[in-house]
């Protein structure tokens, strides 16, 4: 799934970088009062967002998801890893305990409370998705800033590295990284999914920074003798962040789906005491035929949340993209 996103992402990334880069330049050229312009830009974006139903739906889903994740223990009295119903499980006669008072969705094949696992699953899904996105972002930040800020041979070398990473499908990249860990855990999944996102962030940042390298305010700062490091940190980075943030919102969605795909191919987190939706979906594979609900619940959760983040990201992008202001 994620693998297919590869080129689409790359293209979207470049488009985004170009438009925002151009916008920043335009702003500076026009008035030189960058900050004021920036604020009004955000303000107008927010004004448009408030009236966009897609954004609102996405935001509601995301907020609900975060709330469930935060307040999981309040929403269920059961522990996600205790095998409450194991006594009645029998492979042949009753492999999956049925729903009953206290267990609204019944149990899983080892007698744990399915509802509790879904609720606590939100927590770990959020954790994996956010940390993976952060990993991708930080890695991309380092590579992208290096390339974008300095250009020349630094750019060449860094971008060749990024090219190599991009030339491998992101899912495969994630899979190979996961395979490197002796013991698959939540952290190996986070790193695997996160590292696979680095090239996109790197390209994005580089593009945005490249667009600024020759802009007047950077040239001005340079001629005033401001140190290169400081130019990057104080001037170029802040102006490149908005496309990155938009991308990050969408990468959260991809991370959730990628983590599920890793579980499906058997490279996911082996420890299921702290459940995660992708892991639950992956584990339900061999029972999907006889007991589809085991797979359907986590699948729906994943779809809805991924959709929420995507809707939010897409509307943010539209709001920030001057071309869509008609």
């Amino acid at each position, binding site marked *: *799934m994620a*693998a*297919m*996103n*590869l*080129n*689409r992402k*790359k*293209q979207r990334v470049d488009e985004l970088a170009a438009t925002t880069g151009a916008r920043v330049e335009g702003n500076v050229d026009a008035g030189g009062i960058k900050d004021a312009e920036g604020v009004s830009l955000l303000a107008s974006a927010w004004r448009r967002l408030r009236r966009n*139903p*897609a954004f609102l739906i996405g935001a509601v889903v995301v907020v609900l998801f975060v709330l469930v994740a935060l307040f999981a223990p309040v929403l269920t009295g059961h522990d996600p890893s205790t095998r409450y119903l194991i006594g009645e499980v029998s492979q042949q006669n009753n492999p999956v305990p049925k729903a009953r008072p206290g267990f609204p969705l019944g149990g899983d094949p080892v007698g744990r409370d399915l509802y509790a696992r879904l609720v606590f699953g939100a927590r770990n899904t959020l954790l994996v998705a956010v940390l993976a996105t952060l990993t991708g972002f930080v890695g991309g930040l380092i590579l992208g800033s290096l390339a974008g800020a300095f250009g020349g041979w630094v750019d060449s070398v860094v971008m*060749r590295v990024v*090219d*190599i990473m*991009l*030339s*491998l*499908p992101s*899912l*495969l990249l994630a*899979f*190979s990284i996961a*395979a*490197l860990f*002796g013991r698959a855990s939540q952290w190996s999944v986070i790193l695997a999914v996160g590292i696979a996102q680095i090239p996109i962030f790197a390209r994005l940042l580089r593009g945005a920074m490249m667009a600024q390298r020759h802009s007047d305010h950077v040239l001005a700062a340079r001629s005033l003798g401001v140190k290169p490091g400081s130019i990057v940190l104080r001037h170029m980075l802040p102006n490149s962040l908005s496309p990155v943030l938009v991308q990050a919102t969408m990468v959260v*969605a991809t991370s959730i*789906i990628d983590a*599920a*795909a890793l579980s*499906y*191919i*058997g490279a996911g987190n082996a420890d299921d005491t702290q459940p995660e939706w992708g892991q639950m*979906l992956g584990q339900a*594979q061999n029972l*999907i*035929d006889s007991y*589809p609900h085991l*797979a359907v619940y986590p*699948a729906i959760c*994943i*779809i809805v949340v*991924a*959709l929420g983040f*995507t*809707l939010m990201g*897409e509307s943010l992008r539209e709001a920030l993209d001057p071309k869509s202001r*008609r």
Partner: protein
Amino acid sequence: MLRYIARRVLQMIGVMFALSLLIFAWLRALPGGPVDALLGERATPERRAALRKVLGLDQPLPVQYLKFLDNAAHGNFGVSSAVQPGTDAMQVFLTRLPATMELTGVAIVLALATGIPLGYLAAKRHGGIFDNLGVLLSLVGVAVPVFFLAFVLKQYFAVDWQLLPLNGRQNPDLNATRVTGFFILDGILTREFDASWDAFLHLILPGVALATIPFAVVFRITRASVLDVLDEDFVRTAEAKGLTRQVIRRRHVLRNALLPVVTTIGLQVGGLLTGAVLTETVFSIAGLGDAMNLAFQQKDFSVLQVLIVMAATTYVVVNLLVDIAYAYIDPRVRTR
């Protein structure tokens, strides 16, 4: 121009070389190895050690790598240990390529056949219910895990209603003749049309599953570019000239809006080939994606090397061609 191309080709060779080295080193850093698949659960540690020695896996990495390069230069890419045991890895790649090409071909056609008209309609009724529904559909398509969608499709269309075949590429009962490895084409060449038809039916469900993401891309790009074109001067001029809307649409809007779509498809091909990993696994299709997954699971180093290098080469070559094309159009690129 020639110098630019030469420089880029040299760069590309450098990248490929570095990549092959990286892959080689990385694969050998993985826990496990081909010994499992070759010996099974019954072999003693002594037997395993002996096999590693016979395979040369006990030698230092640089020695192994040089041996690999030397063999590769002689067209010998190592023998598969698990995917197709005993077959040269390049041969595995070549026998499995047609399946993947057929599958991605069907997915592209499906994505275009649905994405373009729907995208066009959505743009025409920009902001309407149809537009919003279309956008939502394209977003959902991206949010559903492929293997889950595939399961739902299989359960209904193949098991419950028995309308379409469940998995594989062709009913083995047909005993069809193989010529090129492209089953549909083979059926036509040998006049076994039922074999072609059967192979085509086998492609529908996986094609749909694989097409969801490219559909979303095509739909949204069509929609966006039609919106753009509708806004362009020449359309307004045409309107001012009093041409009917039908003529305007046919002559100006669609034609101009399709250019970016066509360009995107070129870029999508690479992504599709890689997206086949999950689809082929879920539908048990003997393509490259399936090979890649199996090779990973069972540490078939020889096959993984060839598959990854070939995937990367395809990607890099496509990019190189696109870059060259751009350089041809825009001379400024060459001097960069």
